[in-house]
């Protein structure tokens, strides 16, 4: 993928992040979080966190290989960093606590527990 395409996709991701239509979350999840490009996955995570809704945050918290559970440490850390810099963390805290107690995957439960602890410390 060329740099110009990536720049255009970056604009699309930004536009989807600011779009009031809830179906924009589905597009970001389908095309962004599954992209082979780390850069696009990072930008997608940023856009989903910026939305700060239950549906957008759930994508990053509970899905294996997406958002803060991404296989790339760079993408995962970037997602965690975006979550920590949220001004209103009420929704993400609720999702993290549910994930800590109810998720079937132990790795995702432990990641959620770590991020919850980081929010307490930040």
């Amino acid at each position: 993928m060329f740099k110009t395409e990536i720049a255009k996709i970056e604009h699309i991701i930004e536009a989807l992040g600011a779009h009031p239509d809830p179906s924009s979350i589905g597009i970001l999840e389908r095309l962004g979080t599954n992209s082979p490009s780390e850069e696009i996955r990072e930008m997608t995570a940023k856009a989903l966190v910026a939305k700060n809704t239950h549906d957008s945050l759930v994508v990053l918290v509970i899905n294996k290989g997406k958002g803060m559970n991404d296989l790339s440490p760079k993408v995962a850390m970037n997602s965690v960093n975006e979550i920590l810099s949220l001004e209103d963390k009420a929704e993400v805290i609720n999702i993290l606590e549910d994930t800590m107690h109810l998720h079937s995957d132990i790795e995702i439960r432990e990641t959620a527990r770590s991020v919850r602890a980081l929010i307490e410390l930040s």
Partner: protein
Amino acid sequence: MDNMKISGGLGIFNKIKTSKNEQGIANNPFKSNPFGISFKGKVQTSDLFVKSSEGTKNTIVQKGKMAASAVIASLVEIKNTLAQKFEPVINFAKQTAEHITNLANKISDFKVENISLTAFKKETKAPTISRGAQKLLNEYKDNVGGLGTLWESLATV
């Protein structure tokens, strides 16, 4: 004759001895009152040689009263001296207490509403969006699916 001379000599000797004793007593009052108490140079005379029938009890009471009056007089004097010395300290303490009371009143009257916390708040930046993204957002305002299609077309290049 010899006996008369000796008895006459003894009589003169006794007279001289008596007069000397009387003179000595008159000059030195301590000789008549060896237990006299002196306060501030003034001798407090007290006749200790009272009759045994009155007993020593009265004497002790009398001496006790004298000592007590002297002690009280000294205490009053000490009290006055100390009061004079501590007067500026007491005034300073009173003034300080008054200042503290005034400060406490000012603090209690102070309203929290007067404090503005805006200076301590971090400036929260509004989410910025690039010009290109804003253009796309306006273009696909009512058609979010169009943005998805555009993305897919770019990804396949």
